[in-house]
């Protein structure tokens, strides 16, 4: 029987029924301390340090603080120092503050080449789905499971159902992978992919670069999906080749990887079709990523919603966001712009944003910042002069980390502040208590910074 890519990876990693072997475990400072404590309490060893890799990203200040001991916030400092100590005790390589390989965990994995097709990858972070862009099975886990993988390199898992989302046609000018995934979640809802491992397919997907594919898989969790996946191809192989962890026998690895894509006639538990050419630049208006419209639309009217639950949720969201139904999205004026996060902080994202702001100025009403996803991205961007483009336009150019995506570090919104953000979650308080987040693509965020309100990037040049 023809198999899906998911079936092949799952079955080749099943040690016993429902017990999955993990090829790579990524670790960060927030969800790991209690897991290490658990190991110590039970007197257990770490089974495979050589399949484990750690970095500090959630808590790290982006102001140039270059060592854990220098972090001003005491709790953050303890958490990062605890990670460093745990990694040393258990023999795990760690790229913490001060390392030139430090960065957001989902940026540095692919960057180092440790993310490869056909692998199983986990991390105590829901955006682990990012790594599925390489044709890997990658998903977020909780701290108990982090401990489980540290101890035995395996996880007890219920086999998820499979969904394929096929995109026909090509993305139009000005429309980005971020818009594609936001439009998809808008259609399916924030719980629409719950219980599924999702494969994104079709010509619009195959045409994308690896950073674009990562953006899409990254946000799978915002639709509730267990994992997002894209079939590996020449674009994937080119990315991996030459990276520090690329396989020594690359030809042999490629031959294995070519066997991974879903076979013709394989069946999925659910199939969804989306017209990629019909997708527009998207902006969220509410407090979950499914509350999203095209930039040419207006803020929806809760009174026009069918279900009482949706209506009530929309009313609450509008009150929180300080928005009136019927307001054109292009009239919404953010005071803050954040370009960064594991969704959109790779070199390609920064290039796209830089292209928009080059030779222009950030509007007087806006405070804008760019936070590269990793030290390596930062270095590459500086080599190209992107930092100068951003700085001279009035953007802050900062150090690598999760930054304002989740407000666990000094980068946060103030109460009531409105932000155009390239991150992944517009939940209440996510970027700071009372902060109002609008999720957009890097291009849309950059244009909003310049104009002081959202614009349709397609008619803006």
């Amino acid at each position, binding site marked *: 029987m023809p198999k899906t890519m998911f079936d092949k990876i799952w079955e080749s990693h099943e040690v016993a029924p429902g017990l999955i072997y993990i090829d790579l475990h990524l670790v960060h400072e927030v969800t790991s301390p209690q897991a290490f404590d658990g190991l110590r309490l039970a007197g257990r060893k770490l089974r495979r340090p*050589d399949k484990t890799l750690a970095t500090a990203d959630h808590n790290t200040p982006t102001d140039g603080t270059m060592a854990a001991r220098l972090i001003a916030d005491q709790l953050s400092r303890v958490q990062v120092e605890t990670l460093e100590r745990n990694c040393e005790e258990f023999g795990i390589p760690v790229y913490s503050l001060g390392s030139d390989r430090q960065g957001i965990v989902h940026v540095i994995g692919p960057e180092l080449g440790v993310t490869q097709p056909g*692998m199983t990858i986990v991390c105590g972070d829901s955006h682990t789905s990012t790594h599925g862009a390489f044709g890997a099975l990658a998903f977020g886990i*909780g701290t*108990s499971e982090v401990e489980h993988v540290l101890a035995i390199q395996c996880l*007890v898992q219920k086999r998820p159902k499979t969904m394929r989302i096929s995109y026909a046609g090509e993305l139009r000018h000005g429309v980005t992978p971020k818009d594609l995934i936001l439009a998809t979640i808008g259609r399916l809802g924030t*719980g629409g992919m*719950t219980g599924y491992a999702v494969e994104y397919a079709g010509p619009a997907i195959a045409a994308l670069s690896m950073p674009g594919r990562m953006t899409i898989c990254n946000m799978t969790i915002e639709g509730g999906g267990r994992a997002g996946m894209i079939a590996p191809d020449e674009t994937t192989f080119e990315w991996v080749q030459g990276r520090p962890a690329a396989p020594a026998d690359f030809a042999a690895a490629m031959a294995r990887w070519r066997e991974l894509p879903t076979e013709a006639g394989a069946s999925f538990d659910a199939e969804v079709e989306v017209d990629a050419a019909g997708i527009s630049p998207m902006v969220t208006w509410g407090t979950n990523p499914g509350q999203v419209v095209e930039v040419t639309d207006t803020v929806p009217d809760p009174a026009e919603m069918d279900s009482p639950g949706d209506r009530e949720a929309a009313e609450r969201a509008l009150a929180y966001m300080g928005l009136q139904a019927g307001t054109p999205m292009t009239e919404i004026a953010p005071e803050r712009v954040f370009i960064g996060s594991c969704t959109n902080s790779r070199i390609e994202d920064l290039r796209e944003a830089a292209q928009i702001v080059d030779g222009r100025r950030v509007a007087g009403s806006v405070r804008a910042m760019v936070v590269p996803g990793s030290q390596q991205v930062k270095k590459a961007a500086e080599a190209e002069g992107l930092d100068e483009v951003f700085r001279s336009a009035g953007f802050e150019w900062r150090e690598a980390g999760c930054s304002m995506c*989740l407000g666990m570090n000094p980068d946060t919104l103030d109460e009531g502040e409105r932000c155009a953000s390239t991150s992944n979650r517009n939940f209440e308080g996510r970027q700071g208590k009372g902060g109002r987040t609008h999720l957009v693509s890097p291009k849309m965020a950059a244009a909003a910074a310049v104009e002081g309100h959202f614009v349709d990037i397609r008619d803006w040049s």
Partner: protein
Amino acid sequence: MRPIDVIEGKVSVLDRANVDTDQIIPKQFLKRVERTGFGEFLFYDWIRDGEIELEPNPILVAGANFGCGSSREHAPWALEDFGFQAIVAPSFADIFYSNCTKIGLLPAVLDEEHCKAVAEAGEARIDLDDETVNCAAGVFQFQIEPEVKHRLLNGLDDIGITLENEGAIDQFEAERRASFGPVTTSL
């Protein structure tokens, strides 16, 4: 983990869909390196702002897609530390559901109508072995994976169970080519 048999008592209600883990336990409390003491921060902003009121009853009835978003296990830790022993909802986010089962906080899926009935009844008795929620409005069946149920009923340590398969893991590793996969320690 404490074994679960029957969970009985008053019901607290949070009638909202898509409640995310950022609401359940806001980010500033994730900086703690301990596993305990999160209960006082449960729904910190919502409770402090007077948006919701919650009594620490044994059972919480919640809306669909409960626990979506971040994988933070701090969310179930906070719910359990607050006093909840079971959560009844029309659906749960995947990672949250799994996290609950790891710490002995019972997630029970009932359809929306039955969730409402349990909420209105105000009291319920959940029998894990029978997979039932019993309240004044009736007896409602829920489903749970047999392995998960076995672990919860007996309060078993997941890692301990998996270690019974250690031989199979050793064999799996031995059968794979030594070159398979990246080696993080030699970068």
